């Protein structure tokens, strides 16, 4: 099971791939839409990539609640538990 920091690092690399944001800018307090240039379609890409990387399910209904990187990390941690 991945640690909090491992989850954040992996998400950072996914966000970098999808939106071109430098990995060091992908911090817990950052908003996907407002800070990281991840629009709604790109967010689906991030979610699907994260599901595969962490072997979790992130339901479509849940995606709207994942506003920040910290929200996503916390959800993935809970889902892995």
């Amino acid at each position: 099971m991945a640690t909090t920091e491992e989850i954040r690092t992996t998400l950072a690399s996914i966000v970098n791939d999808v939106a071109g944001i430098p990995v060091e800018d992908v911090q817990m307090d950052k908003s996907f839409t407002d800070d990281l240039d991840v629009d709604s379609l790109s967010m689906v890409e991030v979610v699907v990539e994260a599901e595969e990387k962490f072997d979790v399910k992130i339901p479509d209904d849940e995606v709207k609640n994942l506003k920040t990187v910290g929200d996503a990390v916390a959800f993935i941690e809970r889902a892995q538990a």
Partner: protein
Amino acid sequence: MSPTTVVITGLGATSPLGGDVASTWDAMLAGRSGVRRLSHDWAAQLPVQIAAEVEVDPSEVLDRVKARRLDRSAQLAMVAAMAAWADAGLTGVELDGERVGVAVASGIGGVQTLLSNYDALITKGPRRVSPLAIPMLMPNSPAANIGLLVGARAGVHTPVSACASGNEGIALGVDMIRLGRVDLVVVGGTEAAVHPLPLAAFANMMALSKRNDDPERASRPWDTARDGFVLGEGAGILVLESAEHARSRGARVYARVAGAGITADSHDIAQPDPVGAGARRAIERALTEADLKPSDIGHINAHATSTPQGDVAESLAIRGALGPAADEVVVTSTKSMTGHLLGAAGALESIATVLALHERRVPPTINLDSVDEGVELDIATSVRELPEGDLAALNNSFGFGGHNVALAFTTA
């Protein structure tokens, strides 16, 4: 009232001969082939293992994040459009977007995105189909993305008429200016279909050359040993303006688009009319619309794809439309070097036609060792000079479905 004069002020391309217009044109004048044996693993199982892929991959030019949201056909179109926009001197220039349009065609659209997402669906399941698949694969995606690039808020269009699409895009742009709907329009075509499915499908139609062991000699329009076309990819984009708009901003003018002729064969879904009747009417209509006589024409960039039937039908169409004046016309097929870019063919070949008028030099048709006896044309097999003075040229494009589009260009 005479129709609005339409001028060409910007050219952009990425092709099997080069990543821009200058390198593509130089390679055409040098008679260089862009056809290669395909090195992809998937090619080994195909009956046709040659194609003309772009010389400069769009990933070398475009921002990575922007590129991954575009099908390859849109990537190629964006590369060519950015170059055409800069060539027209429009970089950083504020235009009224409501007077700017786009007419950029594609024959097949985002076929690589469609098929790669189908592969993902089958192998990994529906969750792995990209949320970007639809905006990437829709055939209007290249035109729409160019519209976003240049801030076009008048009509943004995507004519689709198979291998006549690129010319139809240019013809539509001319109409938009002449109807007063725009002052400036970005036109042309794009195609990126070098993928095993289109290759297998065209091969099964018996449309493609199978000269796998001699790729550079495979595209040989009008030659007795021709055995089909070579699939190519790339994009050609032109900036058209009303002469008044171009003059008001002091733009450099390459040539004029004097008229277009668009007809349909109503003969067969894939075979050309064997005597080229529809193609002949397209040429005649282009001359009429452009107010040109056959003797005004100095050069034709032919559709001539290197298929047994089509090349002869077109030569009959040219002779039929121009009569004895055809003897004085220098004809070439740049497809002998670029392969057949399908929906981008007319656009890239219009650029070659415009440059031939602008520089008064016609690029050669390569691989023409023995002209088919049914073909009575003066075909350039080396670079040919065009005379000084007012001169007109034609570019023909014909597509599956029986679409014929002839464009008439005149010196500026």
